[in-house]
């Protein structure tokens, strides 16, 4: 079954037939986690780097923010028996419009925070496709761990 992950949302599945998918990653970032042993997969679509801009929304919608959403995503997938050492991690998105001043550069800030958090917590990224001026769609087949990405103007590919 196709499970759509909306903006500021996260889904986990252990059903082999499920495909987790999130559309239209512009400056937002999609994070995929998959454990090949227990065959559990998760997909997060976060929108902004830092929840300190709005504490009310941070508690309402923790998956809106990288700093709240990423730790919560790991916590949730560990409950299904996933282990950090085995997990495949994919990071996609973080585009930006063409603005030399950097004011509209939320995509870059979204990239920086996940790098910082992963470095601090020893999380290795298997594959990533970030930045540029494109729009991306990403999906995970829970049974096989296949991650597909569709990029505006570039077509579809397996990551």
């Amino acid at each position, binding site marked *: 079954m196709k499970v759509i992950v909306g903006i500021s949302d996260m889904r986990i599945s252990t059903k082999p037939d499920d495909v987790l998918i999130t559309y239209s990653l512009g400056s937002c970032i999609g994070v995929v986690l998959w454990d090949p042993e227990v065959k559990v997969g998760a997909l997060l679509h976060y929108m902004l780097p830092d929840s300190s801009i709005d504490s009310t*929304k941070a508690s309402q919608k923790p998956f*809106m923010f990288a700093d709240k959403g990423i730790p919560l995503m790991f916590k949730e997938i560990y409950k299904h028996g996933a282990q950090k050492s085995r997990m495949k991690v994919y990071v996609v998105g973080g585009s930006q419009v063409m*603005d030399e*001043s950097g004011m*509209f550069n939320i995509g870059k800030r979204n990239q920086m925070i996940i790098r910082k958090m992963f470095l601090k917590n020893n999380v290795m990224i298997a594959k990533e496709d970030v930045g540029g001026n494109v729009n991306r769609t990403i999906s995970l087949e829970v049974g096989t761990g296949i991650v597909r990405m569709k990029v*505006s103007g570039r077509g579809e590919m397996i990551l």
Partner: protein
Amino acid sequence: MSRIEEILNIASHLPPFPKVAHQVMKMLDEPEVKAKDLAEVIKYDSAITANLLKTCNAAYFGLSRKVSSLDDALVVVGQDVLKDIIITSSSARFYKGEAAGGYQLEQGELWKHSVATAIMAKLLAGHFDKVDSGTAFTAGLLHDIGKRFLSSFVADEFAKIIKLAYEGNGSFVEAENKILGINHAELGCMIMEKWEFDEELSLAVKQHHDPDALEKGQLTALVAIANTQVITLGVGVGADGLASKLQGEGLKRYNISSLDLERYLAELLLEMEKAEEMMTLAG
């Protein structure tokens, strides 16, 4: 007929913008307009009436109770809100079906992008002392109307446009210009003129992709920022992706910081959830 002639011809063979909408908007500029008189005019357009009833119950407009008839709606809804509802109800018809297939947008996506931009424009309107929030909403809703009518021409030359946009260092709009001789913003302006919208609105539509939009008039700046925000979020974004140029220095003039932009994006997401009834009008 050459292709550019064909495109320019679009504006002269355009379906009209609903007359009822312009009439009602003018009536709403009067402070003492009567609900009964409004109803007399609105009920002549059954599509507007139907959309109006669907739209006004959207949580986005925050009415105190549910309305079920036109007369009821006109009593409960305030004049400012009614303007937004009328323009939304009147514009949806132009975004139905595969309105922007040439841009690889699915059905309903261009409308979704337009409603999101209208909502964002309204959120930002407080930073602009010379723009009223109703005009901001209308400009946001119609800024991409040119895409609706340029779509089939973009489809014809898609491979060339996409190659130019992603292999060069240019924006998608610049690629439209080079390959088609016109872009969707310019065509949109011609459409707005033909539909007899105020010059301020036509100009904002024309300039919304100008990289120096923030140095232009306030409505232009506002629409450019709102559109850039919605593109950044990826809502209703097709093959053109984020290949859009805007110099952000001018944000300072309007006292908007990059953290403000993030806050408004967070706000937009919640507002969009409340506007589901509007988002699906052209589905």
